Structures are given as structure tokens and as C-alpha cells.
């Protein structure tokens, strides 16, 4: 295969094993980061939050196997997360107290197995169709499962759910898994394994055919593949990983509840995945981290955090359909050619009026909220440490001006930044 290589051809892909470091470097770095995180963020809250993020990363990535990789929009993914969690909880309760030698860190396998089994069952039904019909079937299945969960009170534990005690398992290496930090490392290890496995799947013939199905399902049939089989496999595998995530959630919270497989949870995973970016493998990871963080923390800052959330989501759908990861990926060519410093000032230029516009908008929102909902507290309020009276016209005028001027300047600056960006790209193309 030694043709004369044309100078103009970018180096072709090779089928040789790349060096150890190139293949595993990123995973080693990830492992080191995961190991070190609890030393940086050591409070109980931080560790709990990171545990939740870990399970959500697996969940969101598994969802992206459908949405981002195969182009399937499902409204019922939490079903697998929840069922995986419940079966894990039951398995642990069955083993608890007995002398059965199954250590805690193997139990997520039960969750994964459950997710896979139900993925196969529901996948056989739903993947016969694609597009809107598929979305509607998943919606129907999700409703059926969450309704059954309330009817099957003994299995799903009714309203209070199933509780478990992770410390009742046989102890290996002296790990009781009582302290949250030990659970953190358990989740970190499983998260790393699952992420690596899901990444590996994207690099297989099956993974690439999934992408082809996403892009053009009709064409795939003419290159020999059954699109229904591809969808079915993707659905089952994503059920497997969602189940692992659910199992870890059960271990982490030591409680499984039917709300965990409801519409809300399915909606949350859509938000995470999309905000993070469906076109990029790392997107859902970023999304899971950011959205989990916002869900937990934003509510401390404002009572109407869901409004900001909805606006953020709509903004992403409209202006950044590739998500946060997509925005970052746009900078990659600049970084490679060391052009970023030409564009970065424009970003800052756009960021400042953008922040002004947002503070104007959120001022309007918060003042409306103060007057409409928190009437009991009176019109006196504090915004950004500045106390004022929401009844007087002045803050309203300021807010509107901030918003209008900020938006106007932002749009102008954004255009400049866009120009700078394309210019920087153009420089790259010059010899």
C-alpha cells in the first residue's frame, strides 16, 4: 500500500496501533483528575454533588447514544435508569445480611443487566418506527411504566420507594462504603469504565453505522444494513448503560423511588444532553455536570430558576444547536493554529454587554417576581447586593435600559466576533 503520497493529502488514517500514550493518555488523565477532585472540593456537599454528577454523566451519555449518535429522540429514557436502580436495590436487599460474597462494587452490573433486558423488550416494540412515531411510542411506554410503578406497590415500594443500606454488603479491602467519599470513588470508577466503553462503541463499525442511520436512514439500507436492527441495538445498549447509571444512583442515595423513572427525569436528561451538545462525545458529560450543578445551586440564587433554565435551553436550541461542546469545538481550529488570541478579545468584547443585557433581563424577571409572587415580602428587594424598591419606576427604567443597550451592543460585538473568527480561520488556510 505504498502509493506515492500527494503533498496535498492530509495524512490518511492508519490502522496501526497508536502509541500507548496516545490511546490511553486521556483516560489516564481523566482517572487522575477523578482521583484528585475530592481533595480540591472536599466538603460533604461537593462530594455528594460530584457523586450525582457521575451517575448523570453515565445517564446522559447513554441517552446520547440514541439522540446524538443514532438520531432517535426518546421521551422515556428514565425508564431504564429507574428500573436499573430498582433491580439493583432489590438485589442488594436480597443479599444484605446474608453471607453471600458479592461485594458492593459489583451491583451496578445488576442495574446494567436490567437496563439491557428492558431495553431489548421495549426496543423490540419501539424501534420498529423512527422519528416522531418513535418519540411518541417512548412517551407512551414511559407513561405506562410510571403508572404501573404506582400500581405495583409491593415491588416499587409505593410512594416512599425502596430503601437499602449499602454498608450491609460484604466488605472487601476494608471498604464499608459508609462514608460518601468511598461511594465517590466507586462511582468514579464505574463512570470511567462506562464512559470508556461508550466511547469505544462509537469507534466500532456499529457505532459508525449508527451515525449513518442518524444522517440518512434510507441510504443505510442500500449499503446492506437493516436500520431497524441498528436502532434496536442502539436502544438496547443505551438501556444497558442507563441501567448502570440507575444502579449507581440507587447505591449513592440508598433509596429508589418511582419518581426516578418519571417524565421529569426523562426531560432532565434531554436538557442535559442537548445543553451539553449532542454532536460531540464529550457534550453530554459537560451537560450533565453543568445542569446538575445548576439544578442544585441555581435554586439558592433565585426562585424562578426554571425560567432561566427554560430560556437557556431555548437559547441553545436556537443559537447553539451543537451545545456547549459545539461552542468549544468551534475554538479548536483556532487553538491549533494559535489564532485564538486574535479572536478572544472580541469574545470578551461581546461578553461584557451580554452580561449587561442578562442582568437587565434578570432584573426585570426578579422585580416582576417580587411584585407578583413575593408580595408578602413587600416591594423592597435586593439584587446583586443592591437594595432598592421594586415599586418605583427608576429600577424598571434602569433594567430596561440595561437590557436594551446591552442587547444592542452585544449583537454588534457578536458580529465583530463572528468576523474576527472567520478571518482567523481564513488566515489558517493561507500557506
Amino acid at each position: 500500500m505504498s502509493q506515492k503520497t500527494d503533498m496535498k493529502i492530509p495524512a490518511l488514517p492508519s490502522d496501526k496501533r497508536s502509541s500507548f500514550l496516545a490511546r490511553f493518555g486521556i483516560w489516564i488523565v481523566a482517572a487522575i483528575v477523578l482521583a484528585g477532585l475530592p481533595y480540591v472540593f472536599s466538603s460533604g456537599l461537593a462530594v455528594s454533588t460530584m457523586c450525582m454528577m457521575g451517575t448523570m454523566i453515565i445517564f446522559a451519555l447513554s441517552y446520547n447514544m440514541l439522540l446524538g449518535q443514532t438520531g432517535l429522540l426518546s421521551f422515556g429514557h428514565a425508564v431504564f435508569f429507574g428500573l436499573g436502580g430498582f433491580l439493583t436495590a432489590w438485589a442488594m436487599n436480597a443479599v444484605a445480611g446474608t453471607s453471600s460474597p458479592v461485594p458492593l462494587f459489583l451491583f451496578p452490573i445488576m442495574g446494567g443487566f436490567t437496563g439491557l433486558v428492558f431495553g431489548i423488550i421495549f426496543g423490540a416494540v419501539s424501534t420498529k418506527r423512527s422519528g416522531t412515531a418513535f418519540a411518541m411510542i417512548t412517551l407512551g411506554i414511559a407513561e405506562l411504566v410510571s403508572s404501573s410503578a404506582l400500581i405495583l406497590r409491593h415491588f416499587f415500594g409505593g410512594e416512599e420507594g425502596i430503601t437499602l443500606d449499602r454498608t450491609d454488603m460484604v466488605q472487601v479491602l476494608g471498604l464499608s462504603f459508609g462514608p460518601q467519599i468511598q461511594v465517590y470513588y466507586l462511582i468514579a470508577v464505574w463512570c470511567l469504565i462506562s464512559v470508556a466503553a461508550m466511547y469505544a462503541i462509537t469507534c466500532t463499525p456499529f457505532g459508525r453505522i449508527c451515525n449513518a442511520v442518524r444522517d440518512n436512514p434510507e441510504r443505510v439500507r442500500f449499503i446492506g444494513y437493516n436500520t431497524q436492527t441498528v436502532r434496536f441495538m442502539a436502544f438496547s445498549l443505551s438501556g444497558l448503560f442507563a441501567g448502570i447509571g440507575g444502579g449507581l444512583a440507587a447505591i449513592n442515595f440508598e433509596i429508589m423511588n418511582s419518581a426516578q423513572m418519571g417524565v421529569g427525569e426523562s426531560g432532565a436528561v434531554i436538557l442535559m444532553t442537548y445543553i451539553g451538545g449532542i454532536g460531540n462525545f464529550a457534550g453530554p458529560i459537560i451537560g450533565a455536570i453543568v445542569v446538575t450543578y445548576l439544578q442544585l445551586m441555581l435554586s439558592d440564587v433565585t426562585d424562578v430558576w426554571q425560567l432561566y433554565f427554560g430560556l437557556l435551553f431555548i437559547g441553545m436550541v436556537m443559537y447553539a444547536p451543537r451545545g456547549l461542546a459545539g461552542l468549544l469545538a468551534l475554538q479548536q481550529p483556532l487553538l491549533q493554529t494559535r489564532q485564538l488570541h486574535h479572536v478572544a478579545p472580541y469574545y470578551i468584547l461581546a461578553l461584557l454587554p451580554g452580561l449587561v443585557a442578562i442582568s437587565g433581563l434578570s432584573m426585570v424577571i426578579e422585580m416582576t417576581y417580587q411584585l407578583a409572587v413575593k408580595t408578602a415580602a413587600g416591594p423592597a428587594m435586593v439584587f446583586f447586593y443592591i437594595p432598592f424598591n421594586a415599586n418605583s419606576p427608576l429600577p424598571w427604567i434602569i433594567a430596561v435600559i440595561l437590557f436594551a443597550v446591552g442587547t444592542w451592543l452585544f449583537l454588534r460585538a457578536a458580529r465583530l466576533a463572528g468576523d474576527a473568527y472567520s478571518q482567523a480561520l481564513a488566515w489558517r488556510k493561507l500557506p
Partner: protein
Amino acid sequence: MTQTKTPVPALRLSGLEKSFGPMKIIRGIDLDIPAGERHAVIGPNGAGKSTLFHLISGHYQPSGGSVRLHGDDITGIPPQLIARRGLSRSFQVTNLFPQLTVWENVRCATLWALGHKYSFWRNVERLADARQRTEEILREINLIERWNMPAGVLAYAEQRALEIGLAIASNANTLLLDEPMAGMSHGETEHMVELIRKVSENRTLLMIEHDMGVVFDLADRISVLVYGEVIASDTPERIKANASVQQAYLGTEVA
């Protein structure tokens, strides 16, 4: 794929029919295409040429008649099964995987025939056979320089070439090309003719084409489709001379 002349034709259509509601689009076509032949289907717009391709490749279910590929009945079976039997096709309207790179496009099309199927345990980058085959095809269709571009951003003529690449990637022995020259400039057409000539060596080729120069240049035999019926099927010279063809279709266009 050595082409030993066998009495079994590569493709045999017998009494093939297709109706949409009351409309009969294809009205009983009988046609044999021997292995290794380059066969062109011509005919006026609305004659049912693309419908015929859809029937052969499994996109549509025939209303009547049968399709045989190397003697095996493939009537009405799904497209992927037909593709696996070695019949591959391109589309009149560009029909690629726009977000995937040129390289990925072609490689996806090679995978089934190389036996990798739905494998989700092997790293696709390390499949030497797929890599090799993909590179071969990209050199053959002259897109090697563009290998890492998303297919969606290619120039039109390049996308048409990639269409051909997808069609031949599975190493199919029977190739259906639906208007490969549509919308191309003169120079681009010449390249495409050379490409088709090259890829149809050792293959059976059935193509739809409007450009008569191309048709008479490439085809061993030509079938004329008018209102869902084959009114003539013969060598280019005889077709040119055929009075009913001239009357029904070619008119004075043929020089």
C-alpha cells in the same frame, strides 16, 4: 469476480409491474441483462425509469412480476438484503451521510461486505481491510484529497462522485446508477464518464441517463422506456436506427 459467461443473466425482470392507486407506472417489463454488460435505460421524463430502479433495488414493492439477480428471486425483499446479494445503487438526488466525512461515508459502505456487520467490539480504525478498501475507492473516485471533509460541504460534482463511491464500496457485482451526470458541467461529465467506465469493469452496470452522448459512448446495450414499457432494447447503433424509438422519443435530437 471473474466474469465467466453463464447462461443465467445478472438481472432478469419478468412481467414487472407497479401501480400507485389507479396509476400504472410500470406496465409489465421483461428485460435480461447479461453479466458484465453496460446497459443504459433512456426515456422521456415520467416514463418510470427511477421507479424501475426503486423496484429492482427493493425501495418499492412491485405490484406484479418478478426480479431475479443471478437467477435468485429478489422480488419485494427489503433493500438491505438485496444489497447484501451484491446489487448496489446510486441515487438521482444526492443521497449521502452529510455529517460524516468522505472517508466515513465510503468506509460505512464497505463494512457489511467485509463481514464487520454490526460488530460493536472491534475498533473500526484498526480494521485493515476496511481502511485499505476505503483508500482504494477514494483514489478511484479521485476524492482522496478530500477524505477528512464532511460530505455535506463537498462541491456538487464531488458529491456525485462520492455517490458512485458508495455504490461500489461494497464490491457489488451489479451496479445501478441513477442519472450520475445530472446537473454536471461538460468537463465534469467527461471525468464522470471515465470514472463510470473504470468502475464498471468486471461489473454489470445498469444506468439511467439523459445525456445521449454519454449513453451511446458507454452502453453496450440500451433500453428505451416509454410510459412504463420497454419499447426497444438493443445495441446503440440499432437503437439509433430504430424508427419507433426515433418517433417515440429521440425525435430529431440524435445527430
